[in-house]
């Protein structure tokens, strides 16, 4: 490193403090701030059972937000996560309840269905060059309609499949540590987060994810088959949505074909609150996770305080803006 001279040393130190580590620390700080605020405001807030409830409430949105993060880092956007989740749940229902196959098939089917839907969106975006907003808007409508068609506009119950509801509601952790009854849904959220985090930071797929969002044309001109990678990323994102579909189906012990619309905005909001840029090229899963938790804490806290629902909405809007503003300020300061 001949070109690194003495003047760089403070910068290395500063990078350590002001870099990613600090960023996440601070996003985390605004989450902690919320937690402290609500704890003071209501004695009922800081109970183990309520914290677990918050974690569980964030599990579906968190998984969807992680899926959306992948697509957003490539510079795209995914409006279909909500109805795709429903579609995957319905597919699981068809496989398990209608066809009566055993549990693993249902799990596989949901994840594959998601991957396939993601691949479709990815093909529309990469091959047909349809803007991601439109491609996923179209997919959102198509999947909404197909969920209704396939399910016969009826919820599909999983009463026949023993153990299906344990996917989200059971607690492996609680089995081993009875004082910590963290539901599997939350465990799955964290496992998904860790895996995707690893993929993003350590694998080729992750590298291309960032590179595509940063400057797709330069990646293409580097001889990379950008279309194929983009499709792969969308498919991976879809598979994660499939996991989200399993989580919600397990929690409701049924596939509700009408559900899902509006979940996409919530997922994207979590992503952006977590510091991922909608213009692509930047983002972290840890941020997204914190974003999803901030939203879950906020809504739970306001409900526990029995704030009138119309005011809950107003306060949520204000706090989302404030959270992102705080993040902006900090980043501008740290360069």
């Amino acid at each position, binding site marked *: 490193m001949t070109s690194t001279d003495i003047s760089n040393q403070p910068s290395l130190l500063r990078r350590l403090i002001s870099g990613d580590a600090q960023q996440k620390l601070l996003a985390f700080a605004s989450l902690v701030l919320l937690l402290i605020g609500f704890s003071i405001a209501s004695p009922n807030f800081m109970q183990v059972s309520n914290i677990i409830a918050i974690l569980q409430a964030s599990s579906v949105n968190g998984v969807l937000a992680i899926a959306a993060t992948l697509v957003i880092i490539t510079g795209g956007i995914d409006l279909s996560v909500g109805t795709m989740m429903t579609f995957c749940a319905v597919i699981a229902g068809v496989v398990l309840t209608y066809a009566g196959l055993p549990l693993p098939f249902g799990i596989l089917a949901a994840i594959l269905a998601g991957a396939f839907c993601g691949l479709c969106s990815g093909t529309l975006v990469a091959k047909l060059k349809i803007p991601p907003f439109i491609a996923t808007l179209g997919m959102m409508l198509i999947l909404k309609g197909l969920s209704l068609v396939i399910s016969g506009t009826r919820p599909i119950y999983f009463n026949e499949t023993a153990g299906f509801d344990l996917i989200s509601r059971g607690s492996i952790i609680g089995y081993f540590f009875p004082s910590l009854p963290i539901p599997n849904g939350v465990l799955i959220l964290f496992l998904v987060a860790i895996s995707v985090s690893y993929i993003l930071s350590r*694998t080729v797929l992750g*590298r291309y994810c960032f590179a595509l969002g940063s400057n797709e044309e330069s990646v*293409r001109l580097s001889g*990379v088959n950008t279309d194929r990678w983009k499709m792969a990323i969308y498919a991976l994102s879809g598979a994660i949505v499939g996991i989200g579909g399993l989580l919600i189906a397990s929690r409701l012990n049924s596939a509700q074909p009408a559900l899902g619309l509006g979940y996409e905005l919530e997922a994207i909001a979590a992503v952006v609150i977590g510091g991922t840029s909608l213009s692509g090229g930047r983002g972290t899963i840890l941020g997204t996770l914190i974003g999803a938790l901030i939203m879950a804490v906020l809504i739970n806290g306001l409900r526990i305080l029995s704030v009138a629902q119309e005011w809950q909405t107003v306060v949520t809007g204000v706090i989302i803006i404030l959270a992102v503003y705080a993040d902006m300020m900090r980043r501008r300061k740290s360069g």
Partner: protein
Amino acid sequence: MSGIEKRFPGVHALKNVSFNLRAGEVHALMGENGAGKSTLMKILSGVYLRDSGVVRLDGKEVTFAEPKKAQDAGVGIIHQELSLMNDLTAAQNIFIGREPRFGFGRLDEKALNRQASEIFASMNLDLDPRVCVGELSIARQQMVEIAKALSYRSRVLIMDEPTAALNDTEIDELFVIIRRLQKENVGIIYISHKMDELKRISDRVTIMRDGENVDTVDAKATPVSDIIAMMVGRALIDSDVEIPDTSEGTPALEVRGLTRGREIVDVGFTVQKGEILGFAGLMGAGRTEVARAIFGADPRDAGEVLVHGKSVDIQSPADAVASGIGYLSEDRKHFGLAIGMDIRANVAMASLENYTSKMGKLDEAAIGLVTREYIDKLDIRTPSDQQEVRLLSGGNQQKVVIAKWLLRDCEILIFDEPTRGIDIGAKAEIYKLLNRLAAQGRAIIVISSELPEILRVSHRIAVMSEGRLTGILPGGANTTQEAIMHLATKRETVSESLGATA
């Protein structure tokens, strides 16, 4: 300006720099890549705030908090990196913020286009003011940028590498404009890495190195070699081309009948193993288009590409790279770099499969290692191999793109304006590198708008005009700039035989 200090995270960009400009003088600012030239000028024009130091304009101390303030005070700048609005027309770009109006905010589009036309006419530039800037070639965009700066009628005009994208003809036009401004008593700060321009245009030269100023000397009285020595800190010895004997060689790349619309008309040529084929031509001659068509970046109407005698079907850059062809684009910001990512990621971008395990895991340690190797080899000035590329100076960014293709190690390499914005010392290094690559048996195409560069590196010289190949000349001392210019301005098709022998 005196005692100017500026620090960026990890970089002490300016250390106690002083600089003065007289009215009506052309003052050249020279220095290696990353010496701090652009940064100094950005402070003068209000883009950056200085950490300390004094800026005086007409003896009065000034601080420009924003570009608008500098403009109002009569300081105009042409930035090194193009900063145009691609969706707007040339005229709209030039007059942004100062549009002629009727009242009630209504625009007088006629007046706007007329005034832009007048400026273009005064620059002897043939350009429709109603064309969207995004559709123009990079050279023309640069001309629009110059027109924009001229339209401000500044008393101090900063030109940060205005000729990096220009051809000799446009450079001549620019110099005419500079002379005229000089007569109008405008002070001009001129940054360039082209040494010949220094002698032609400037009155005094200030040399910077590593964020400090070395000296200010008289341009006419000081030999170029002295200036280079001051810039680089040592003397440079440049050698002539040595043309290897490739008559026995095997053709590495053969292009036949390449055609696309009016941009490329029936272009055919051959590059041997171990040969450097230079491509000369005027702006818009279609050299870049040919390179992109070969590389699969653009579709083509007709034509065949043969690699090592075998016809290859190249539909996309991925195919081209798989066939062993690499292409370094002339527009690094748009096509060469992911500027938001770090140096490592960019250097490895074309070669990731070599650093990936079967499971898709990246070998970061190995990537870091080779990146640091190229940072050393190409002397890229950066605090670390994980610096974001957008924070590097222009020339150092260019070196990152070069490193990317060197790492990829293609058999056939197309370099489109490889030394754009690169300082003289590094240029010499790159020439050596090209020679070394050729000696290793690679086939190389160098597209350059600098005739001296073409003459310096090429073993043979292909010349294009208006989308056609108008001739192929031998390299070395036998060919003159005049001979190239003759072919570059030729308008009819080259004969079949010429194309065949090529």
